[in-house]
């Protein structure tokens, strides 16, 4: 009657998906709060990424819709010299309507306040802009200024000098009436306006300003509008060779669109990477939390297995739970990100020449939710696969099996999937595989270091604890290695959080320090340029009269490169194996001559020769990067065209130049005895002690030498400071997500340890352990964990920031240990506080109550 043949057993019972969902829901009942806490680790990471993605898509849409206003015309052609007759003929025929513009840096004088300032003068002729407009107050000024001796002045400049419409402004020798405040010009960013604010004048008065002299750095721009359906791209490509030869470039709406998108892509990539770090940190939290969650579920899983639930079904029940909770976390993150996205355009508006909208991007939300889901499942997978190995025998004897996956071949698959995911995602952000691999290796290395540190801690404490120690110390230490300890998980999550936070902090400190270093002390902070040879002595004299030092006087000669080892631009274009940049031939070089090296230079190859020998070839010194660009080495021959005169030279030395230092640095340096009689301008460097001296000195120079331009580094530094402040704010804003995630991971890691420790602490209390003793044991355990994790994290951060400083930012490395020590103490203290807060239930309630509530 009972003898059932084997085929009576339904071995091929199908998995009932609906039941699995029901069980997943039932099983999660008393754990939802905890599961939400686990998953909250990813909320901020997803939030950061959704915000960045939304911004990216909105900006892309904005760039597309505002593309034409970026250049204000269908086609623009520009170069830094006057076009030759052939090109001029072409320019006269192009398009149906044309405008032209000369722009150059120059000093201007506000006659009422007598304030001076270096500005970007734009002399305009024609109906430009054809798309968008010069946004001015009053509105009509944008068009009417061209009708008389009027100027449009950038709003920041007006505010800076408290100038009003109808005030006078002296540009060179001419005085203009300010007819409008310039709020926005096509393609102009807030940053550019901050460094060199724009002043528009009508072109018919340009010559009268007297600013167009030898050596003046003038940019010639031509704008074209086409009425019919001309294929501008095709037309521009056809002109490319001719323009290139003449040293001119072109821009179309399409190319400008690409360029603008590209420049934003770099910023958004960097920000995405910072967001991704927050997300990865959250993943560590998810993985460690799920690991402990599953450990606590062994009994339930074993019961289910006893009742006939298959290993795959048990796995799926928890996979469904994690997916569900991951979905909730991802949606919450996406909502948070969409909220943040409303703020980001305000922060970033100065970086982009377009009006940024803040619409909801469903694509970004979709990506964020999918990413959150994938990442929560992927990082929960390692603990989840261990479910398959939980034996039903655990119902009879708990912990008969270790749930570790050390011998499960599937764990390798999970590791590979995680690595693949991190590398691919990093690739999508960085855009190159080497960078992505470097990023992934760095993360993996940090994991390994932290795991090994935790493992060593476990081994050492086991050896270290001695019976002669007091009970509290022994117990506190023993908690680090006893079964169910969380030493590895907490060390990895706390250490990784510390490493991320500390790396960001150290790099930020280094960048700020670098800027301060280059401008501190008695280094030059004011540069006078465009000084004509005849004015050289007088300008130096005026400087000394004002009690200011002449730190350096440097002659500058403009020239072009004609040949490299006999190869012309045409040869370089035809034969790419020459590896000579074509641009190197089109560039107008500003070269100096002197007999010695400066403090910011160092010869890395060949021999420095400061004096030319009559009748011999001229030895020149090439800067390292310039030499690489033209694929030249010591001894190679270069022919320069010095305003019509061909000069045969050879590279006698190669120099390394510290471009970060504020001084006059050059790609090519000639020896003395060659260029003394060539047409040249001079640059003078001085140091002004304060703003008052700076203002009176500038006024004196501008009055006497209107053609001389002055760069006040103090002013530039203010702008730079503001700019760095804004960039710093964006970075801090994004890294804030990592910090918040780190804290959440810390809270959830320590909080889940509560469930591990609770039984032991209750037992201790039941056996008569005092509140004070349990408090001390808990504090000691978390102190060791926090201190060691923070210390390891800081060591990793120092290593990674050193690598970044050396290889990415190319700057000297130094660590300010005081704030680093502060980070160490804050993290350690936070770990102890969170640990103790989580144990307060055990400390304050009667043991029986806790035992009942946790049974």
């Amino acid at each position, binding site marked *: *009657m*009972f*003898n*059932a*043949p*084997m085929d*009576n*057993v*339904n*071995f091929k*019972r199908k998995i*009932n998906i609906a*039941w699995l969902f*029901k*069980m997943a829901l*039932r*099983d*999660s*009942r*008393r*754990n939802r709060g905890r599961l939400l806490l686990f998953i909250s680790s990813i909320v901020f990471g997803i939030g950061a990424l959704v915000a960045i993605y939304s911004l990216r898509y909105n900006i892309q849409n904005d760039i597309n819709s505002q593309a034409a206003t970026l250049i204000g015309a269908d086609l623009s052609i520009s170069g830094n010299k006057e076009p030759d007759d052939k090109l001029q003929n072409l320019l006269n025929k192009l398009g149906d309507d044309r405008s032209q513009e000369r722009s150059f840096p120059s000093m201007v004088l506000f006659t009422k306040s007598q304030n001076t300032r270096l500005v970007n003068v734009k002399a305009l002729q024609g109906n430009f802009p054809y798309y968008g407009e010069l946004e001015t107050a009053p509105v009509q000024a944008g068009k009417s200024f061209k009708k008389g001796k009027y100027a449009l002045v950038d709003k920041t400049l007006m505010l800076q000098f408290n100038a009003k419409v109808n005030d006078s402004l002296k540009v060179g020798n001419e005085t203009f009436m300010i007819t409008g405040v310039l709020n926005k010009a096509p393609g102009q960013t807030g940053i550019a306006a901050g460094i060199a604010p724009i002043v528009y004048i009508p072109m018919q008065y340009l010559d009268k300003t007297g600013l167009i002299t030898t050596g003046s750095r003038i940019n010639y721009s031509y704008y074209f509008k086409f009425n019919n359906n001309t294929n501008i791209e095709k037309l521009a490509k056809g002109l490319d060779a001719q323009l290139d030869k003449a040293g001119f470039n072109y821009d179309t709406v399409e190319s400008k669109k690409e360029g603008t998108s590209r420049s934003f892509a770099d910023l958004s990539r960097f920000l995405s990477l910072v967001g991704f770090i927050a997300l990865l940190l959250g993943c560590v939290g998810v993985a460690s939390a799920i690991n402990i969650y599953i450990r606590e579920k062994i*009994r*339930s899983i*074993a*019961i*289910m*297995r*006893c*009742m*006939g*639930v*298959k*290993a*795959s079904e048990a796995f799926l029940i928890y996979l469904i739970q994690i997916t569900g909770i991951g979905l909730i976390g991802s949606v919450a993150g996406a909502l948070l990100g969409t909220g943040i996205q409303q703020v980001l355009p305000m922060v970033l508006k100065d970086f982009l020449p377009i009006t940024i909208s803040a619409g909801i991007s469903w694509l970004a939300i979709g990506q964020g939710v999918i990413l959150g889901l994938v990442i929560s499942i992927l990082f929960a997978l390692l603990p989840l696969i261990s479910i398959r190995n939980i*034996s*039903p*025998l655990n*119902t*009879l*004897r708990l912990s008969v099996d270790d749930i570790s996956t050390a011998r499960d071949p599937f764990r390798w698959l999970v590791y590979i999937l995680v690595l693949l995911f991190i590398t691919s995602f990093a690739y999508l952000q960085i855009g190159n595989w080497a960078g992505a691999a470097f990023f992934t290796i760095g993360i993996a290395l940090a994991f390994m270091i932290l795991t090994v540190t935790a493992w060593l801690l476990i081994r050492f404490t086991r050896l270290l604890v001695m019976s002669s120690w007091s009970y509290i110390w022994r117990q506190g230490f023993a908690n680090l290695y006893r079964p169910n300890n969380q030493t590895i998980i907490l060390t990895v999550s706390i250490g990784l959080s510390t490493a991320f936070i500390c790396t960001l902090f150290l790099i930020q400190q280094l960048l700020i320090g670098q800027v301060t270093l280059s401008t501190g002390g008695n280094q030059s902070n004011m540069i006078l340029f465009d000084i004509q040879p005849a004015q050289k002595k007088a300008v130096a004299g005026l400087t000394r009269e004002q009690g200011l030092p002449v730190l350096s006087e440097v002659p500058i000669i403009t020239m072009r490169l004609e040949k490299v080892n006999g190869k012309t631009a045409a040869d370089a274009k035809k034969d790419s194996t020459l590896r000579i940049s074509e641009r190197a031939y089109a560039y107008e070089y500003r070269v100096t001559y002197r007999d010695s090296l400066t403090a910011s230079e160092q010869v890395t190859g060949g021999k420095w020769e400061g004096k030319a020998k009559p009748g011999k070839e001229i030895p020149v010194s090439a800067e390292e990067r310039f030499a690489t660009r033209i694929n030249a080495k010591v001894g190679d021959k270069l022919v320069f065209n010095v305003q019509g005169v061909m000069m045969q030279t050879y590279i006698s030395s190669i120099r390394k130049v510290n471009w970060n230092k504020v001084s006059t640095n050059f790609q090519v340096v000639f020896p003395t005895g060659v260029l003394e009689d060539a047409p040249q301008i001079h640059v003078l460097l001085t140091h002004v002690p304060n703003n008052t001296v700076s203002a009176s000195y500038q006024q004196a120079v501008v009055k006497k030498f209107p053609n001389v331009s002055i760069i006040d580094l103090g002013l530039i530094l203010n702008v730079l400071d503001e700019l760095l402040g804004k960039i710093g704010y964006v970075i801090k804003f994004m890294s804030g997500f990592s910090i918040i995630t780190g804290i959440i991971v810390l809270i959830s890691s320590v909080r889940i340890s509560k469930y591990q420790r609770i039984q032991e602490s209750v037992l201790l209390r039941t056996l008569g352990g005092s509140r004070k003793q349990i408090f001390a044991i808990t504090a000691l355990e978390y102190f060791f964990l926090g201190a060691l994790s923070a210390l390891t994290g800081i060591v990793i951060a120092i290593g990674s920031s050193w690598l970044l400083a050396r290889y990415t930012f190319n700057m000297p490395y130094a660590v300010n240990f005081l704030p680093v020590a502060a980070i160490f103490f804050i993290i350690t203290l936070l770990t102890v506080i969170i640990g103790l807060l989580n144990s307060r239930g055990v400390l304050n309630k009667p043991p029986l109550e806790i035992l*009942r*509530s946790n*049974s």
Partner: protein
Amino acid sequence: MENILNILNLNKTYKSAGRLLTVLDNINFGIKAGSANAIVGPSGSGKTTLLGLCAGLDSATGGTVELNGINLGSLSEDMRAQVRNQYVGFIFQNFQLLPTLTALENVMVPLELRGEKNIKARSLDLLDKVGLADRGHHYPAQLSGGEQQRVSLARAFSNSPRILFADEPTGNLDAETSEKVVKLIFDLNREAGTTLILVTHDLELAAKTQRIIKIKGGKLVADDITGNV
């Protein structure tokens, strides 16, 4: 009556601290279908290990376990799970109810797994039989030990098992509750015609079965018929 369980030359060894530890050594016996049996022995004698092997919760190092004509040794863990779901019921010392499921849901799980019909009504009926019809919506933590064990009993019988394994079913209960639970086990067992294998060190409880198998040091040392019907 045919045997529902046949144990042949059963061995179980574990590796412990690099040494082989023999927990069960050449155990042989058969269990008649519908009978009530007890496995007794001192702590550490191997009786729980034996129960685990008999119920297909673990695999033996050597020998054969044949349950309902099925050689468990040839099956994977997932296949053994199917066998358990169809033929086996369990009662544990620690009740082993799923803490996140209500009493009713705990009883429903084996039936749901089998994809049966009228699950709720049948489960409620079983709860009624163990006297807990009104406690179906309570979670295990809201029930007393005795009540939890009664839910466990209802769950054990929910899949109409052919064999019921009970591991120290009264080990965590007071004397009065124990008595009630034991009565329920035997009553339900009789009613359903289920084979009962009771693992206990309580000789008084064991004496209520028809047969007592004694284990000591991993070996079967006695096999007595009690004369109970």
